[in-house]
């Protein structure tokens, strides 16, 4: 195991991916704390600039889920 703790920004659609993350919570599914969700009405709102800014700020990964 390395100490690498990647910071991941997840842009999530309210109607599906955000809901799925809620359900993952209800089911107590465990995942790393380094994933943080930014809620959008629709993943179609994600602009390439949002992804680039995340990397610029130091994110190790970006997840767009919708």
């Amino acid at each position: 195991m390395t100490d690498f703790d990647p910071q991941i920004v997840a842009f999530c659609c309210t109607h599906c991916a955000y809901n799925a993350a809620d359900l993952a919570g209800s089911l107590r599914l465990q995942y790393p704390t380094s994933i943080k969700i930014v809620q959008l009405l629709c993943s179609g709102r994600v602009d390439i600039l949002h992804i680039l800014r995340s990397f610029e700020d130091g994110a190790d990964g970006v997840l767009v889920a919708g």
Partner: protein
Amino acid sequence: MTDGAQADTLKLVDRSDDRAPVGAVMVVGGGIAGMQASLDLADQGFRVYLVESKSAIGGHMAQLDKTFPTNDCAMCTISPKLVETGRHLNIDILVDTEVVKVDGTPGNFNVTVKRKPRYIDLEKCVGCGDCADVCPVILPDPFNEGLSSRRAAHKLYPQAVPNAFTIEKLGVSPCRDACPAGQRAQGYIALIHEGRYDDALRVIKEDNPFPGICGRICNHRCEDACNRGLIDEPINIRALKRFVTDKVYSAERQPVEPAEITQDKRIAIIGAGPCGLTAAQDLIRLGYPVTIFEALPVAGGMLRVGVPEYRLPTEIIEREVADILDLGVDLRLNTVVEDLDELFDQGFDAVLIAVGAHEGIRLPIPGADLDGVLINTRFLRDVRLDRYEPDENGQVTNPDGSPFGERVLVLGGGNVAIDCARTAARLGAEVHLACLEPRDAMPCHGWEADAAEQEGVTIHADRTFLRVVDDGRGQALGVECSSVAHFEFDHEGRLAVETVPGSEHLIEVDTIIFSVGQRAGLAFIPDDAGVGITHQRTIAINPNTMAATRPGVFAAGDSVSGTAFVIEAVASGHQAAESIQRYLEGDKLEADARPELPVVKFSRAELQARVARGELALKNRVPMPELPIEGRIDSFAEVERGYTDELAQEEAERCLACALCSECLSCVYICGRDAIDHDMVERTEQVNVGAVVLAPGYQIYRAELSQEYGLGRYPNVVTALQLERLLSASGPTQGHVNRPSDDQPARKIAFLQCVGSRDQSHDYCSAVCCMYAAKEAVMIREHDPQAQVHVFMMDMRAFSKGYEGYYQRARDQYEIEYTRCRISSLKEDPETGDLIVRYARDLGIEGAVMEEQAFDLVVLSVGMEISDSVKGLGQSLGIELDEYGFCHTPIFDPLQTSQPGIYAVGPFREPKDIPETVVDASGAAADVAGLLAPARFSLTRTAEYPPERDIAEEEPRVGVFVCHCGSNIGGFLEVPEVAEYAGNLPGVIHAEDNLYTCSQDSIAHITEQVEALGLNRVVVASCSPITHAPLFQDSIRAAGLNPAMFEMANIRNQCSWVHSNDRAAATGKAKELIRMAAARANTLLPIHTTTVPIYNDALIVGGGVAGMTAALSLAQGGYVVHLVEREATLGGNLRHLRYSSNDIDPAAFLEQLVTSVEEEPLIHIHTQTQVAKTSGFMGRFISTLQNGGGPFEVKHGATILATGGTEYRGNEYSYGSNPRVVTGLEFENVLAAIEHNTRESDARTQSLLDLLGDQAPDEIAMVLCVGPAESFCSRICCTTALKNALAIKRIKPEARVTILFKDIRTYGFKERLYTQAREAGVIFLRYDEDNRPEVDASGDQLMIRARVINLDRQMTLTPDLLVLSNPVMPPDGAREMATQFKVPIDKDGFLLEAHVKLRPVDFPSDGIFMAGMAHYPKLLDESIVQAKAAAARAARVLSKKQLTAGGIVAQVDPSLCVGCLTCVRVCPFDVPLIVADQDGVGGIHGAAFIEPTVCQGCGNCVAECPAKAIHLAHYEDEQILVKVDALLLGA
């Protein structure tokens, strides 16, 4: 009414009654149909009561994994509906409720409903789940179809609406019922099983302050009542109780907090035995000062001085007594109450006499008072008070100094006699015991007598005692006895003994102990004290109140009952305490009777059935370990040694949890909202409504009843619904299809179709099983490509839109193997758990062979049934149901039950899938809206808010509210630390933590804080905004803030729950999530909406049945309708139909329908008219209509497209080239002309009549699936062909009718036509698609050659007519019309709905709807229902006065727009337009415009616009990126 009785009249709403109807509707059933009907009604201005018998709405659809044919996640599609229904201001959800009866008339019904107790207050519960976490009762989870477990306190499923828990309780378990003190044995047993011993002790002490004592000496009637005793052995409850005390008492006793004295009235209790102590505990806890007077030097009464040490160690008694005394009870030992009156003189307000029965009885026989004769109670007491301690020589003497005997005889056979005998044995004597009763009928417990014998006591049974023999010196030397032949007690309790003559004999002993009974010592009660005494020397009381004859004096325990068991003393102590409290408070003494829960008694047969089903394993009780016999009589050491943890848990596991909830009260103690109420009772209420919609749904066939399938016997046989749960990512296996027997992946899976459909006991097709099996098979393969799936079926009924293609993909692409047969047997291999399926494999033309295959898992595709409770509902409402319980409705009024004003929808009418159920629901909403139109908006509610505060000039002032959510967040991260951190974030001026932020008081508190602190933005860090944001937004609106000034941080679902094993990391992430939310809060801006007035008229395109029905439905609702038909007459395809499937004349119906439309003043009929142009958006359309008189404009708020379909005409099978080849419609017309002998038909019919010589043909062949229908299923052809086949068989029974088919797709009750056709002699020949029939029309005779699969041969037919079941196709111009209205069509040219499952009559663009065959081929009744549904959806728009525009919508800045069309192309809703009246970059005319009333706010255009000319309110780039920056760059 049945079809025939009602169908030939078209029922319109009677508007002659001017009494205003009630503007409320009851919808029964909270599944997808109930929700849809509720939403469509509430949105039209009616108040809806949605009744659901379960604890949450959602129905079966919530249980499904995916839905066919789109493979959408069922929960993802249903959950927005759940939330919308749950939050709708005009929908009252009544869960746990059943309809009892309906009285009244259409428009004004009184519905009686039964509200079942939930035991959790819905108003208070916030859904935190703490109750379920502590509930010890484990039950199978019905939501997961029994594949996993849940607790008695539970939520139906994670997304349940209402988001609240419920407790499942059947009644009172028999163990509790049998216990005089009502001990919750089931509860503490469940807690022992969980290893929660302190909680178990707490549960015992709820009802009994003496757990350790009762765990040893109680007579445990609970065990006699235990249901488990019916099949093996009762639970060893006493041993388990004792075990709990052993565990807890192994630690040092912690002093109990003294009770707070809040009352001034004083209570005296005489006697510190179990009864007096129990009453003292109860009364001091109520705040009363209590004094106990005890004559003995020790407390504990008979427990302490009557029960030998080896049965009940002193330390246990002292510990449990101390727990009571610690409360602050004033105990006065060695204090004999001489006179009752003195106590009142001393100022006591009430006195409880609980003196027990300590006076032993000496039998009135000669010699009874000789030396050496002892009395049981005194003997036991003296031993217990150490007065029989051996002297220095080891000699045991009586307290008076005389030596204790060497040979002792105990007279009596009760438990006390045994105690005396075993005690004497321990003092070193040779002990005998003589009793009246036979050895096997002694009054003591059998095991007590056994133990005594094992310890050397000689028992002389069947003896009566004549005298004690004197040795001449006043010392007893034995007892003269007779043997008893027979004895009995007369009705007054007097003994009559018949002795054996000449049996007198002497039992020689030196000490005799009488143990023949005890009674109370009541000498302290003077004769004039006013306290009555009975003949039996007990105190006379009212047994309901324990009140003696003198006011203020109460008596309980042995002093009123005679000797009894300790648990009875406890029970009567509780009862006395309750009465004393009532007396002191001045209440009437007798409490009102509480409604009693039923006792849950099982029958032996029920339990044996559970054993047979494998739900329950037989297992004998775990015996209590005991001291070996050898060591026992050497000491007074306890004989029973108690359970170990392992033994206790093993025994506890045997409990059947009979009552489900055991009332252990764990939930009550944990609930931070005080929401649990175990005393809730069932209530009956009345609801006044104008109409009732029944949407009770179906139940799956209980396949256990078909034993040949092995469900319940073989663990690896599951139902399709169980498989849905296995496939579901939120199911018991997280989506892995594992075998229930060994949890290993199932790699070879068989589906058995038609289980509970199309068989002897079900004459119908369940309509959904073929497709759900295909979907489940595909999902299995998607999940595990190595899995093999084999489906055994009769026909593939893929009859609806997209279904045939789905089936073909399943078969060809996913390689699902389909075999057409019913299996011949199914057996389990007991070694492996595999299932051996035997079946006939079809080799096509080569015949069939029997084969066997082993499968890992067998799935039963169970059909739909109507449950007994729904049948009962139908009966109590007086609705006619068929023999299966389905509610048949008339073909021309398909939603109307036999009771006017009561409508039926969904599978309750006929088995059907989700889209058709949704269509039914909307259709019923239209019927109801027509009936209740005058009362629209009469009972609706609207939300009121104060005027909005202008914060434009204010700096951000953010308030953060961090929620503990009970222990859901607070248990896993440091909430106060997180709140403190939040308080220091930029812009945050206030942060606090709350136990439950969503509770009503906290919501009000947020409003107050916004006002008090001048907050202008609020962040709530709690759960999901999807469920909770609207609630909090309401709270800030109530304080005058714009609801957009709100942000949530989801620190529960995204943090505490998913990082529950790392407190520090979870705390850190919660801070980050709040930092992100607070940063965004700083950037939020108010969002404002405007309103746009709407046009309230409707435009309907198409004057067939669908268009006319929709028009009538809207007109009945009071809306003006423009009905456009391009032909000269109304009627559409119905004009060509001559027969219906149930002998009803379509022409008569059509005539009636056209007349109704023509007579309806609100309908403007425009025949020979077309729509030339249409523009606008929902609520504001403008269309130009063109007819002979020139163009004219119509303004309308909604549009319904009902342009119908047309019969396909192609050249397949020599159609067009051979006159004997006809289409189905042509055949129907010629047949009708022959039957009715009419010649006034069209030219085609005329020529056919000429060909046939006006005679019905002798031989007819029909071919199904013609032309385009080879790739899509036209749905109605099978039913139509059978209808026509039956028609010709009726006209000419000897005619030979042969149907060549691939599948017969008679879904639902259409299956009955198939049965009738076979019975009528119609011949069915199956061909396969690779070998379609060939027509040879070269000679005079028409010859058809076909390879017939089901007869394994090549056949040649020579019919007079070949009837082609040509499919229904979109009409000419359908594609152009779709372009004109900017609506999508599918690949076959039919209109494409917004969502196949849940929006079946909507288009993606709002305000336009579809109905009838323009959507897809459908039968007449289906078109009628869909037309009503479209009318209801349109009425949702038309019923509004204005539309809301704006909100979270995209807005174009035209000055940046280059008109590149990117937005126009990417918008999924076709909203952006390039409009001429906007100027773009450089002042060029034409820029994009996004209509705010129809924009959905998805932001696709914003992200794609290359010029960054489009903004999305609330999701500006800055408002998104600020979260990224806050996360990664810090605050």
